[in-house]
């Protein structure tokens, strides 16, 4: 729109974005100033960097290699439950990391299902801790995401091309060579980069399954410098390293990925005429079954061990659950307080600075922001007493880029489609928000709030840095129970956490679409 006039002033959005940028840059600056570069990067730091990059690379490669056949099978087969399976592929995104890891331990752990089976057969046990474990957990989280991204690529191949291939009698390897490989060449690098970037900043997985000199990520090293050595200078230096790594990985990923990765419209399936041979049917079926099994197994394990424990859960689990809900709600409110004005300002045409501000949350890991905020707060207050507000704030900053991707397109449509009418009616900003914007954006608000609550309630990052023994969120309590080998209580807490994160997401998402018109 060429008009000078806008239905709503971008001022609020710019103010909020400036606040978010100031917080993130402030945290980065605090880290940079406090980092004791004089000590240099020692062998321990090098080992952490190497392990971080190694595990992220292996996780990305393994996730993508496994995702390709699954996506291919999903793209060309129609079967009952296909939609449910595709929806299930979105679930790990909001599944709390500690819950998933707990589920994996129940299956692959020392006394887990697999090893019990192996010992019955007299075979040596599998080891889940260390590099394998970290990679297995990351594949669990990211193979579904990679599948969705690659499936999107498959569905963007025009249907006419498959029709033409069918007419020409192209099948099997020729189809792979002519259509599928060129598509994969376009899609796979971006997918690899996204998974790599996510694995570079995953903390909870490394916290539980990693450790020791040979399996410590940079983030884990930050946590250890903080909690065990109380060495802020070293934590800050490691944070600076992590910052450089994340910015490089995120920049790389952003450059390679285009379009929206939430995968709307993945439900439809293309009509395909190839792959009718029984062998390829069986192969596709096997891949889909394996993927579903791999996804459902740890979740079923949590159900199996958590249900009996639910009735006799220690008091602290319930108390921390209440704390977690409060943090999640606060975090969602903070998120919407930032994302709504920012999305309005972006949609009204102030995109440059604001869009960059929205992406900054991706360039810095939550643990690094947490470290920076700790360094800032410690000057004038006891950071431990601010553990919960800081956790809510950092979670909101982390979800901000996703929330903007959810809110901006619809907001843009509202302003472009209805902004003129509102202006010519002389509606002021508040009336525009109340009468036009909020009623129309409700579904997106619900989705963003649900996402933020689910991610926030399951987060085990900043809270692990800040919390003293008095304060704990549910994931932290669960982690402490695991550390004390109180596995039954931990299983109950895991199930509760699982129910809470999916439940909150479901309530918010449904609530947003309740009685939605038009």
């Amino acid at each position, binding site marked *: *729109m060429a008009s000078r006039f806008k239905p709503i002033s971008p001022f609020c959005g710019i103010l909020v974005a400036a606040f978010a940028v100031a917080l993130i840059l402030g945290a980065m600056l605090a880290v940079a100033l406090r980092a004791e570069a004089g000590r240099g990067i020692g062998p321990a730091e090098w080992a952490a960097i190497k392990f971080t990059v190694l595990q992220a690379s292996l996780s990305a490669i393994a996730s993508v290699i496994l995702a390709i056949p699954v996506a291919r099978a999903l793209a060309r087969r129609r079967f009952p439950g296909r939609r449910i399976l595709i929806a299930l592929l979105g679930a790990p995104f909001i599944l709390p990391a500690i819950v998933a890891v707990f589920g994996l331990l129940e299956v692959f752990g020392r006394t887990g299902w697999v090893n019990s089976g192996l010992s019955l057969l007299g075979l040596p046990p599998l080891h889940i801790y260390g590099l394998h474990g970290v990679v297995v957990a990351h594949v669990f989280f990211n193979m579904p995401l990679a599948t969705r991204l690659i499936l999107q690529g498959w569905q963007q191949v025009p249907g006419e091309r498959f029709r033409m291939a069918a007419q020409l009698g192209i099948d099997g390897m020729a189809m792979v060579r002519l259509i599928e490989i060129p598509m994969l060449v376009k899609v796979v690098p971006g997918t690899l980069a996204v998974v790599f970037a996510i694995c570079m900043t995953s903390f909870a997985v490394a916290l539980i399954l990693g450790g020791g000199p040979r399996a410590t990520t940079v983030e884990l090293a930050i946590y250890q410098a903080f909690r065990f050595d109380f060495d802020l200078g070293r934590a800050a230096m490691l944070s600076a390293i992590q910052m450089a790594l994340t910015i490089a990985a995120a920049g790389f990923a952003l450059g390679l990925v285009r379009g929206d990765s939430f995968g709307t419209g993945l439900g439809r399936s293309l009509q395909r005429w190839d792959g009718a041979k029984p062998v390829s049917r069986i192969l596709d079926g096997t891949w889909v079954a394996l993927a579903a099994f791999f996804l459902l197994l740890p979740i079923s394990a949590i159900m199996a061990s958590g249900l009996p424990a639910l009735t006799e859960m220690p008091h602290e689990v319930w108390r921390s659950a209440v704390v977690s809900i409060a943090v999640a709600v606060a975090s969602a409110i903070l998120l919407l307080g930032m994302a709504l004005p920012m999305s309005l300002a972006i949609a009204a045409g102030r995109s440059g600075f604001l869009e960059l501000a929205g992406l900054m949350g991706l360039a810095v890991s939550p643990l690094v922001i947490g470290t920076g905020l700790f360094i800032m707060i410690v000057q004038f207050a006891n950071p431990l007493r601010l553990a919960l507000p800081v956790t809510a704030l950092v979670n909101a900053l982390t979800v901000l880029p996703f929330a903007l991707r959810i809110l901006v397109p619809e907001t843009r449509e509202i302003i472009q489609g209805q902004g003129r009418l509102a202006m010519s009616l*002389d509606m002021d900003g508040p009336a525009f928000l109340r009468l036009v914007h909020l*009623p129309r954006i409700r579904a997106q608000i619900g989705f963003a709030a649900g996402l933020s609550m689910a991610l926030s309630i399951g987060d085990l990052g900043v809270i692990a840095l800040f919390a003293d023994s008095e304060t704990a969120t549910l994931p932290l309590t669960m982690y402490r129970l695991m550390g004390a080998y109180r596995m039954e209580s931990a299983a109950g807490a895991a199930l509760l956490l699982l129910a809470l994160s999916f439940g909150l997401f479901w309530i918010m998402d449904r609530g947003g679409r309740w009685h939605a018109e038009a």
Partner: protein
Amino acid sequence: MLKLENCTVRNGAFTLRADFEVKAGESVSVLGPSGSGKSTLLEAVAGFLPLAEGRILLNNADIGDSHPGKRSVAALFQDGNLFDHLTVLQNAGLGLRPDLRLSNEDRDRIHAALERVDLKGLGSRRPSELSGGQRSRAALARVVLQRRELLLLDEPFAALGPGMRAQMLDLVLELSREVGSTMLVVSHAMEDARRINGRSILVAEGMARAPESTERLLKNPPPALRDYIGPNFQNKTVT
């Protein structure tokens, strides 16, 4: 009276000049080939496009710099004239109170306006539950309540069939007479211009010309208009 004095409007690379006057209460058609700048002209008068040069006077008030909502101008476009998530009553009510804080007296006036456009009893419907013609009527009810001095119509009835379009045009002419507002009507259809039966502004070659008699313009069209309306229509006008 609407007066455009030496106006220049820039819309991207496109430039439109306008210098004309329309009498108070007059209904004027705006004709011209597609892409000639008819919508640009209306957008500038409505305030959605800034003036690069010149002044716009509406009943002697200079409105060229004011916010679209502060001009005494109501506009109906091809689509997006109603909020789909609000009821017909609310949509019409926005013409009275843009914040929709409606008093009982306001409600009475809205009901009267809905009755005037034959939408009695449909106030609680949403636009999606109405026919195309009814949606146009709902937008007109709002325009009636807005009581603005100038009414701009940019092909709001283009999606309707010819019979319904004629009906709506008659209704809008009646309403504008009742409210006493000046009106500019853009239309692709020459029969619409003839129905308005007054003067027409020809927009062509980057220029909005001063209004002249529609009948004379269609009988003896300048080249730009002749190419647009085609020879068949000319024959029809002669017969």
